[in-house]
């Protein structure tokens, strides 16, 4: 299929036509024409490289009632993504070549985004001994990102070994930074609001202590470290310090930590329960500044679907996590673009270029240029809509943005030249 995208503004800059054929960008220029091409009217729309998520929970295998690779892929495509990293905390855990290949194949079959499996660092996420990281790296899934996400690799000796070991295949350990002894029973950010609400506090220091430890370890052994869902101002400071020292550390922030604060917990509605927890206004400001200046490299959604019964309960009983794929770009527009912290090239960098580089993905995070793979999205930046969880493509409904008006609408997404979203609707 050949598409002629008319009048889009690449990176929000001068309007141009984009000709997509054979999976690649064949031409960019004014008044292009092509016989037999499907014309996409993109007047006023912004073209960006397809987004790449380093942090997605697709729940398959194990919790297909909450999400499947297919439903999660559709949600991703609707959010403008062309590649997502599927976290390893499935059931069974993605800690063997067999499981990561299964997830990878399910992604291929769905065909809506490239589903890139993340391998567990330790067997069963139990933090005791290394999973067969090399076997996962060598599998058809070509795993490069390893994470026990949901759990911290808390044992410092084991973390050191993991960091060292994955150097052999240019892997990276993505750490869920949470000192478990400081967060026993923790329910929300520890501060004024937890004191009042009587919910056990999750201190910022529990995240910062692990990040500080891990950047020192990564520097010591010369390995790559990626920090998942950075949530505190102190973490941003530590990352800035480490990068200044030349440590190969990268980090991501979630859309919800860019927008929401622990004030949301006052409703006791567990849709706002997430790990790490929503923090304070000061933390939100530091995260936005960190993403703007590049201390934080990427936006990672931590899209975490949960079945209704896992959220419609008491706060303490509810599972942590919230949806993110379909609103991620909108939240970044609201928190970063509209206030002038990032331009569209900055958005492309933090949501596509850098996450693709961290995951060592070929063909994603490439510039909008002739000859490049046609992974791109078209965005209507002026559209505004109120989020209706019932209308989401995800199988779950636990969106923290329900009822909130957000800017920006993904009108089309192309994966290697094939439209996965057109007119704001999923194609398949």
């Amino acid at each position: 299929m050949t598409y002629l995208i008319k009048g889009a503004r690449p990176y929000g800059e001068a309007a141009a036509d984009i000709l997509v054929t054979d999976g690649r960008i064949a031409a960019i220029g004014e008044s292009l024409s092509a016989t037999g091409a499907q014309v996409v009217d993109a007047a006023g729309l912004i073209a960006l490289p397809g987004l790449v998520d380093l942090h997605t929970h697709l729940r398959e295998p194990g919790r297909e009632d909450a999400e499947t690779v297919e439903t999660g892929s559709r949600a991703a495509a609707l959010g403008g993504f062309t590649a997502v990293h599927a976290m390893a905390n499935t059931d069974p855990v993605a800690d063997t070549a067999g499981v990561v290949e299964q997830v990878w194949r399910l992604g291929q079959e769905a065909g809506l985004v490239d589903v890139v499996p993340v391998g567990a660092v330790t067997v069963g996420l139990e933090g005791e001994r290394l999973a067969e990281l090399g076997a996962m790296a060598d599998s058809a899934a070509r795993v490069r990102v390893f994470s026990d996400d949901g759990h911290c690799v808390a044992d410092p000796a084991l973390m050191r070994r993991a960091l060292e070991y994955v150097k052999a295949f240019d892997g990276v350990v993505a750490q869920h930074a949470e000192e478990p002894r400081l967060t026993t029973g923790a329910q929300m950010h520890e501060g004024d609001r937890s004191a009042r609400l009587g919910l056990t506090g999750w201190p910022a220091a529990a995240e910062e202590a692990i990040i500080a430890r891990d950047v020192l370890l990564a520097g010591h052994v010369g390995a790559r470290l990626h920090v998942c869902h950075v949530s505190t101002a102190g973490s941003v400071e530590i990352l800035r310090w480490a990068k200044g020292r030349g440590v190969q550390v990268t980090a991501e922030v979630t859309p919800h930590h860019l927008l929401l604060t622990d004030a949301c917990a006052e409703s006791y509605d567990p849709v706002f329960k997430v790990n790490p927890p929503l923090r304070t206004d000061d933390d939100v400001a530091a995260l936005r500044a960190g993403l703007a200046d590049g201390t934080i490299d990427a936006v990672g959604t931590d899209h975490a679907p949960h079945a209704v019964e896992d959220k419609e309960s008491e706060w303490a009983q509810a599972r942590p996590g919230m949806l993110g794929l379909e609103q991620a770009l909108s939240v970044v527009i609201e928190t970063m673009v509209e206030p002038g912290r990032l331009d569209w090239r900055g958005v492309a960098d933090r949501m596509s270029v850098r996450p693709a580089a961290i995951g060592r993905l070929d063909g994603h995070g490439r510039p909008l240029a002739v000859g490049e793979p046609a992974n791109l999205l078209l965005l209507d930046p002026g559209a505004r809509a109120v989020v209706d969880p019932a209308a989401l493509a995800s199988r779950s409904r636990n969106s923290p943005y329900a009822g909130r008006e957000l800017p920006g609408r993904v009108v089309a997404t192309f994966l290697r030249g094939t439209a996965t979203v057109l007119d704001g609707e999923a194609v398949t």
Partner: protein
Amino acid sequence: MKRHLLEAADLDRADATLVLDTAAQIDQALAGREVKKLPTLRGRTVVNLFYEDSTRTRISFELAAKRLSADVINFSAKGSSVSKGESLKDTALTLEAMGSDAIVVRHSASGAPHRLANWVRGSVVNAGDGTHEHPTQALLDAYTIRQRLGRLEGVRVAVVGDVLHSRVARSNVWLLHTLGAEVTVVAPPTLLPVGIGSWPVEVSYDLDTVLPKSDVVMMLRVQAERMNASFFPSAREYSRRYGLDARRVAALADDAIVMHPGPMNRGMEIAAEVADSARSTIVEQVGNGVSVRMAVLYLLLGGSTQ
């Protein structure tokens, strides 16, 4: 009054005073009567939904509802559908389908009554949720202070003990502040929440300096299991530094009173001779609890069938 009583922090001064005044009227109406019963809530159904064992609070609410002539159902989570995995929401909807007008809920999870209030049409009364609040305890404490000292405005109250884990402390802090009292919380720093700086209280780590300046000393129950989590080194050390014994009581002003929400650990946070002294309001608190809970149920249910 609002439809629910979820937290003392919700109550403004007028509402809180209304509860206390109504309790006083109920006490007067029942004083000296042989049949301690009012017909006010006849035909209404009050459910005591208790997810935690709490015999004294449950009995107090039961008595309050019965003295108002309501039908009372006690639903204990143990040995019921709940132990078979039924969710809070399903239990609530079941109780409502059976015609409950008010649900009195005790739950180990902070915020459970707030969740419940989203799911039912009737009134929800928080009878203690996790480490969050226990508003009727604070109301009965305020009632007791007013009864003994004749006022609440300007009364200096020391709240002593495990503030971190105490729903009684939280409710008292907010309610007493609303009613014009001056609250000082006293505890080892490990048993104070990190965010306490945002509370309308003074904070002290030293009981002995606070006692001479207090009109009311409210002792909180300290669970020995906190010792195992290193909140304090030993029961003996806790008792030595924060226990209220006869020597410390001697530092109090003559008309100062000693309160405890019960159940007490005699010899731990409070010495037996102090608990049984004339300053102690512990038994009055129990009696006042019934009156205050009657007032709450009366005000929430409006006293008439809708």
